[in-house]
């Protein structure tokens, strides 16, 4: 019953060049793998990889999931988890960080004593 309405409305938006979309996604994946081998700071590589992954995810949502041609309501629904997960990351950051509580010499000592399994 709903299918009689949807096709007519969908003809309104143009069909993107899907082949170009997979070419872009593949190229971005190759760049991502290439970035991991580049002699750069770990933090910089991480930022680049997150940026590339988010770009790929947005391309999939925009063109394959047709979000580019949908009403704003669906875009708002799609953006909600992204916003909430970003908030979650900031909520987790001040969480217990063992790195802060282990001074350098003590850390080495703890690891040395923690390695052997206790005998029962």
């Amino acid at each position, binding site marked *: 019953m709903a299918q009689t309405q949807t096709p007519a409305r969908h003809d309104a938006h143009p069909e993107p060049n*899907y082949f170009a979309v*997979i070419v872009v996604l593949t190229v971005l994946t190759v760049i991502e*793998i290439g*970035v991991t081998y580049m002699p750069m700071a770990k933090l910089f590589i991480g930022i680049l990889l997150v940026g590339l992954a988010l770009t790929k995810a947005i391309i*999939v949502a925009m063109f394959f*999931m047709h979000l580019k041609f949908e009403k704003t309501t669906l875009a708002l629904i799609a953006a909600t988890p992204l916003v909430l997960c970003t908030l*979650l990351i900031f909520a987790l950051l001040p969480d217990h960080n063992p790195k802060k509580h282990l001074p350098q010499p003590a850390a080495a000592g703890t690891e040395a004593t923690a390695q052997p399994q206790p005998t029962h």
Partner: protein
Amino acid sequence: MSHAATMDPTAHVVEPAESPLTPESWGKLGMWIFLAADAMSFGGLLAGYGALRYFSLNWPNPKEHFGINLTAAMTFLLIVSSFTMVKALSACRRGDAGKMKLFLLITALGGAAFLGLQAFEWTHLIEEGLTLQGNPWGSPLFGTTFFILTGFHGCHVLSGVIYLLVTLMMAGKGSWGYGEVEITGLYWHFVDLIWILVFTFVYLI
């Protein structure tokens, strides 16, 4: 005139249903809400993974233990299966049932191949000592988070393959139309989208 007067209120009753907030398809809206909720499950798992890894003192380097070439091939496979999914939808729009069924089948096969490769990868890693409880390389949570994240995604791929086969059957019979195939596509592209994130966060970073 009195007849026209009675027609007008009816038109007004229909009008609010066409407000900007009215979805194009209720089924599609439902799928998007489900996907948003599902994305939050993955978001929670990925954020938890990030926190555990960030706070860990001895997290192994994923690049040294995971086969990046194999997982890159798996990524490519899912991207291509998303392409065949949109091709199935295009065929459905044109009314070409034969092509639609063919592309739906290829998409489902792509998903099944992905699962096969994942099973191969898991077997290889388990043989090397990576388990839910521990591994020979460092923090035991390395294995826990790996299996939970990729396993949760794998369950989605399995559900997607079943969903695609049901769509193939129903659309093949003519019981399902464009709207239903499009909703199936939304789910499948979401599985691809999540893998793009899992691939980067678990294997590359």
